[in-house]
């Protein structure tokens, strides 16, 4: 529960009479008991009505719809960066185990995981936007405004995936079926991708699902540094301004997204690995 009184916050630092405070509380419906407000909210949600923002007086659904595509765009691009950089780096480190390539990759990965996202974002902004002027600062649209935030957000996630991919691949590459595949004369590429990566992929996929929620959290920081509109910024503003209806909607959407992504990942796991069977009535029969 968010502590504090939104009406007090609304008028913080302003001259306001007691009567006007009471009037504002009544107008916003905050004079009702909390359980009534909660059930009223539930009822409205079931009808697809997220309410109206206390601060901007706009319908919350409109507010969310206006920024949701920007957050999705960032999350998808960041996931792409994660997959494109993280998995090949992990595979490369695994097949070059105990060489300088492996060591160098793991040093970079460790540094990258330890780097605060906020700091990394600012450094990237100063280097690529201020010094090189490759990308705009605080631009509102276009692919050029997406590249840097997606790279910053996705890279840290990529480093975590790289570490897991390496350890998972090392485990799989030592298995007998991989040795058999090699002895059959299959190309190293086929051994790594078909026999190695496919079997190492289950934990990677699970981590990718977990990362989806991390991306939402990371989006708050990335959106702040790059001045991008999005759900993360909206959540932070709602907390700061005690805008309950907006915050409730953002939390609900985040929870739904997290649950949905993890459900999809579970189903994909089952599709990838025939040994995974969900315990349903049908399977029991």
């Amino acid at each position, binding site marked *: 529960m968010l502590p504090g009184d939104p009406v007090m916050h609304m008028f913080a630092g*302003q001259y306001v009479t007691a009567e006007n*405070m009471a009037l504002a509380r009544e*107008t916003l419906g905050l004079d009702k008991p909390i359980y009534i407000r909660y059930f009223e909210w539930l009822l409205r949600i079931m009808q697809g009505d997220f309410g109206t923002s206390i601060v901007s*007086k706009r319908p919350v659904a409109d507010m969310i719809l*206006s920024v949701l595509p920007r957050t999705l765009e960032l999350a998808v691009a960041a996931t792409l960066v994660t997959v494109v950089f993280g998995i090949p780096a992990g595979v490369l480190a695994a097949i070059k185990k105990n060489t300088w390539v492996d060591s160098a990759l793991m040093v970079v990965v460790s540094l990258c995981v330890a780097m605060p996202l906020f700091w990394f974002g600012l450094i990237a902004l100063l280097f690529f936007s201020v010094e090189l002027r490759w990308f*705009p600062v*605080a631009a*509102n649209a276009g692919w050029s405004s997406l590249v840097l935030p997606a790279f910053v957000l996705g890279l840290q996630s990529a480093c975590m995936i790289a570490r897991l991919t390496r350890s998972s691949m090392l485990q799989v590459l030592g298995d007998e079926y991989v040795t058999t595949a090699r002895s059959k004369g299959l190309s190293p590429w086929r051994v790594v991708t078909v026999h190695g990566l496919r079997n190492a992929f289950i934990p990677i996929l699970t981590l990718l699902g977990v990362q989806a929620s991390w991306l939402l959290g990371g989006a708050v920081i990335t959106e702040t540094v790059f001045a991008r509109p999005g759900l993360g910024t909206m959540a932070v503003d709602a907390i700061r301004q005690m805008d309950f209806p907006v915050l409730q909607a953002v939390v609900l959407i985040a929870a739904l997204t997290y649950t949905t992504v993890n459900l999809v990942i579970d189903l994909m796991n089952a599709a990838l690995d025939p040994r995974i069977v969900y315990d349903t009535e049908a399977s029991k029969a």
Partner: protein
Amino acid sequence: MITRSTTVAACMIQLGILHSAALAQTAQPKPGGTVRFAIAEESRGLDPLTAHRRFSETAIHVHDGLALFDTANKPFGSLAKEWSSNPEATEYTIKLRDDVTFHDGTKFNAESVKAHFSRVFDKQYCCNNGHQYMNAYVGTDIIDDYTIKVKFSKPAGTFAFYIGMLDVTGIPSNAAWGSKGMTMNREPVGAGPFKFVSWAPQSNMKFARNPDYKWGSPMLANTGAPYLDGLEVKFIANQATRVACLESGDCDIIKDPNFADMRRLSSNPAFEVVKIPQTGMPYSFVFNTGRFPTDQLAVRKAINLAIDREKINMAAFRGERRPLYSTLAPATPEFWPDATKFIYYNQAEAKKALADAGAKDSNGDGILEIDNKPIEIDLYIFGNRDNNPSVIVAESIQSDLKAIGISTRINVRPWDDQSAVAMREEHNLINFDMPLPTGSVLNVMFNSRETPKPGRYGMSFTYVQKGNAAVSAELDTLLDAGDNAATFDDRKAKFQAAQKLISENYLGVPVVQGFTTYVMIKGLKGVAYNNGGHALFNSAYLEGK
């Protein structure tokens, strides 16, 4: 009957015309181009009915108010040509311009103003700033198409100031209100120099030049249509990102960079820094006079004399603010210059004040006692622990007070706890920052009526009614009289007497005066500023366009 003329306002209007003529002779404005302006916080809306903090920052481009005040708080006409009040300041007669057209093509007239004030006091739009500031409002009489009489139930001398606040007298199109209603908050139709184009939430607002504009305030160098084709206001919360936006060439002007960047940008010939002094009560603390040991006048005086404000300014604000030795900032119209005779830095005198009050260190622990009770204070600051200048301020005060034998406990709380902390009376010193453009801020901070109570937000944290009922009663009388004074001179006299009482009783600890700071590219010329520190782009142009 109107007996007091507005010669002051009329003279100011004439002076403003001369000023603008002089500027016009020296500058060669280039038409065209769009200025990209980055500020920290997005406005909650663009209609005065939903005006709260940060409203005027962006709404000032699309709306004109009845009057405009410059950074020295001098009044200039805007939508109003002139105004005057009766001797009691319960009625204001306002003559309006007859050449103003809203962005939807409808005419501005007396009905527009009356309808706006009616909406301000409509319960369904509670509780906008206009409602707060004009709480004695009774109604508006239309004398003729371009003359109105605004009536109050009690003297409202402060309306002479509030008339210049956009959140009170920014007038939107009444016809547009009839058709759009609350949508006006997102798609405003005003009579300002720029027309609203678009609002991308959390990102930017775009405005286009109003080519028909010819009613600019004489405070501005250009009273006609803006030279710029457009204006883009970007919302960039992070200070470092705002600075990066300026340095990368993606912004032309930014507001309030951080202190370190400000110093660096000041020495860069590519940029220009403009600093507008804050008014009202900038960064300060007040005492809880109802709690030991700050219920003792000697302790309050000693604390004020022991604090090295120069050191605080350098350590916490990198020298970018100015030490403050008065309750009101010097730029406030009702400032009392003699306040500085009470507050200065002199640790020897601070020690003497404590010794004279019988304070002594009987157990040798370095902390003085009065009546066998150690002089320990609870100091409250608000915000985060990290990167918060208040933490450095508090630590500096702690070290200064330790040198005179006073122990300080520093408490850091979220800003929203400020009222709760004050209500529990846990503080000896509590931090706040209230840079309003008028001495009325004293009423908010020191009138016992404004003491916070459950369900009632208030900022009078001194509990002076408990510490000294006689002083409190006298202060309340002066402050109410100041707010209700009919003339500026009378209000100034009352508020100055109140400042004297506050200073003599050492009710607060002023620390530093801040600035509203803008950094812009050298090629951006002609930006003007009002008394709220807001940037106006009526006369702005981009060199080389």
